[in-house]
């Protein structure tokens, strides 16, 4: 005989779990007791939200399922923002929560919350395990659901009596999971694929719009081969950065609200849009009616519900991006002549480069450029949310998938530091840098405690402008510079870091940037860099909310 908690740990080991991010509490005591001498590493965070983000960061950096653990009630509720973050970006996470004993369920018992009810809209699926006999099956299904099809978070709620009760050991676990209500389709329909190839052969101005789906499906090699074979330029979403090398001649960088001019013009002018693992999010499309107005649209996605959700498409292909791209490459007989189109795009790229004032002041974009120049793609960049995120997306050159970790769909401030912790455990061989703002870093700054305790060599680059910068930017542009509650008093982040036993440096001059970054990266342990940047720098170019994406403000012309 063995306990439910023991059963759980064994089930997690069968799934290959090596790390759990968590926080103990009353009803998870049996689980923590089993973890005490288990081979699974447990990282004690300082707030359950960070456990969920760390599991998410672990999943994004590795492609494996991230796991977090929290107690019932407040512990479980604190996971919710992290679960919702993972859900919006289709990240495979399994969240384990303790629950009050089954006999007390529904009684408003101490630290009871209906976490399966609460997380229903932000999980791919969830379970309340009421019988220890179901535990093996449920854990196996949870991991299977999280990582297959369109990935996403799955929550498993574990009442205390389930983890303490005894179950017969030596039970067999089925090799494969079979769920009659869940059978994702991986192979695209051949007839649809040929239809797409026919459009590709005839297109004069084709464009690929690639997103997080390309990264999730591990399709970078296929995507690059497709781009080069078909000679079709490619723009990526925020989530798709790194899916193709950002410095590739056919890559236009990011599109959308803070996209490059060349990318947004290309979308508006193209006659064929190949949407690859994307969901036509409003931050990408701007005014949806004028998004790719002249184009036939091919949409490749594993989730049939994404097809036609926001934009009518001409050729839907339901399938895994990797499998569909392989089929497209295999079946491609003829490609269109795109030379004129590529030349036109190259003109846009030359004419409308990204840029900021070239002077002696400390611009945040410069910090990101220097970071990019020092790391040369050999690192994992995590961001918080806001201006720091957009500057990193625009000014850092991502050349590999899974080296860019950011909360795209939910836009969760406070995501970066805990996600960076998770990324480190997924890829201990890679330097991990969290690019933050002074606003977002303070949303989970308690995780300096976790970083210090385990000596996690995460580098935190704070672009400190003493504002909630993105909101301030909107107030400047659309609310007559009325900076309502967006100014933050100065904080000495180096002192805070030092208080946790973490090294730090404050940088106020442009010529100190490079050296500071090199110092931080050379340090063995964690490091905090507090860059006092230009306070009212804006993220440009920008598409105002509701405008067409070729109607940008703050544009530069050479």
């Amino acid at each position, binding site marked *: 005989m063995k306990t439910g908690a023991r059963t759980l740990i064994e089930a997690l080991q069968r799934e290959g779990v090596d790390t759990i991010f968590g926080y103990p509490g009353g009803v998870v005591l049996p689980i923590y007791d089993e973890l005490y001498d288990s081979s699974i590493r447990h990282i004690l965070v300082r707030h359950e939200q960070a456990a969920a983000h760390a599991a998410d960061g672990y999943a994004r950096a590795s492609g494996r399922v991230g796991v977090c653990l929290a107690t019932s009630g407040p512990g479980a509720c604190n996971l919710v923002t992290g679960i919702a973050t993972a859900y919006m970006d289709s990240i495979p996470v399994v969240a384990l929560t303790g629950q009050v004993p089954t006999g007390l369920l529904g009684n408003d018992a101490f630290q009871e919350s209906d976490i399966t009810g609460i997380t229903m809209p932000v999980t791919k*699926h969830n379970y309340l395990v009421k019988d220890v006999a179901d535990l093996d099956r449920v854990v196996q299904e949870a991991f299977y659901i999280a990582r297959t099809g369109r990935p996403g978070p799955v929550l498993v709620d574990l009442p205390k009596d389930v983890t303490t009760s005894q179950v017969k050991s030596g039970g067999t676990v089925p090799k494969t999971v079979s769920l009659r209500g*869940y059978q994702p389709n991986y192979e695209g329909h051949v007839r649809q694929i040929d239809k797409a190839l026919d459009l590709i052969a005839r297109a004069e101005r084709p464009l690929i719009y690639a997103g997080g789906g390309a990264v999730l499906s591990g399709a970078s090699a296929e995507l690059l081969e497709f781009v080069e074979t078909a000679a079709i330029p490619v723009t990526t979403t925020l989530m798709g950065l790194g899916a193709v090398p950002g410095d590739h001649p056919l890559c236009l960088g990011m599109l959308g609200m803070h996209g490059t001019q060349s990318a947004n013009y290309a979308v508006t002018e193209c006659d064929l849009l190949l949407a690859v693992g994307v969901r036509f999010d409003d931050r990408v499309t701007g005014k949806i009616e004028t998004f790719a107005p002249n184009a036939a649209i091919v949409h490749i996605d594993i989730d049939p519900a994404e097809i*036609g959700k926001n934009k009518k498409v001409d050729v839907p292909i339901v399938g895994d991006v990797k499998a569909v791209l392989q089929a497209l490459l295999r079946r491609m007989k003829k490609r269109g002549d795109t030379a004129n189109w590529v030349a036109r795009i190259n003109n846009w790229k030359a004419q409308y480069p990204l840029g900021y004032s070239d002077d002696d002041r400390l611009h945040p974009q410069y910090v990101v450029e220097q970071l990019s120049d020092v790391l040369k793609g050999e690192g994992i960049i995590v961001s918080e949310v806001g201006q720091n995120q957009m500057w990193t997306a625009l000014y850092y050159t991502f050349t590999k998938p899974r080296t860019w970790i950011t909360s795209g769909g939910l836009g969760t401030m406070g995501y970066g530091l805990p996600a960076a912790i998770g990324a480190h455990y997924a890829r201990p061989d890679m330097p991990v840098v969290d690019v933050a703002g002074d606003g977002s870093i303070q949303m989970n700054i308690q995780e300096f405690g976790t970083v210090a305790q385990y000596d996690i060599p995460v580098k935190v680059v704070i672009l400190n402008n003493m504002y909630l910068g993105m909101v301030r930017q909107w107030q400047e542009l659309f609310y007559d510079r009325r900076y309502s509650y967006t100014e933050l008093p100065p904080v000495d982040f180096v002192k805070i870091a030092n208080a946790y036993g973490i090294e730090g440096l404050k940088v106020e001059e442009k010529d100190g940037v490079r050296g500071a970054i090199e110092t931080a990266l050379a340090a063995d342990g964690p490091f905090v860099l507090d860059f006092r940047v230009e306070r009212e720098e804006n993220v440009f170019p920008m598409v105002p909310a509701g405008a067409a994406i070729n109607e940008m403000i703050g544009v530069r012309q050479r």
Partner: protein
Amino acid sequence: MKQHTLSVLVENRAGVLSRVAAMFSRRGFNIESLAVGTCEEPDMSRITIVVNGDDGVVEQMMKQTNKLIDVIKVSDLTARESVERELALIKVAAETGPARAEILQIADIFRAQVVDVGAKTLVLQVTGDISKIDALETLLRQYGIKELVRTGKIALLRGPKTVKSSK
């Protein structure tokens, strides 16, 4: 906007109805009626949902419903030959006298059954499609409807075709 009847085959498990209903609600899809019960398979239930929406919206409703892990199959019965029925119980004021006789006459025309007789009220049970029940309700309103309950529409395809697990 057109009315659609969706037949949804689901796992017979705790919380499935709330998953379906919550998804409709959070995505802003309106439910006209919903009926749920056991079906031919002991471990499955069948939900019949009547919704309003243009074709694109209904397509989204079906795809999003289908995404739920506990949903086995979703079919739109609207464009297909199907039998659709609803049942209503109507408690109508019926003092002895001519009104009572009239109500009984109306019930007879609608093939409604009297399932309870009180001194001052009658309870009628009627089955049929939605418009038939609407019509009876309208006619009885003049006598005073004290209480009314409808099951929501249930439907099955005509002929040998079935909405079965094939997902």
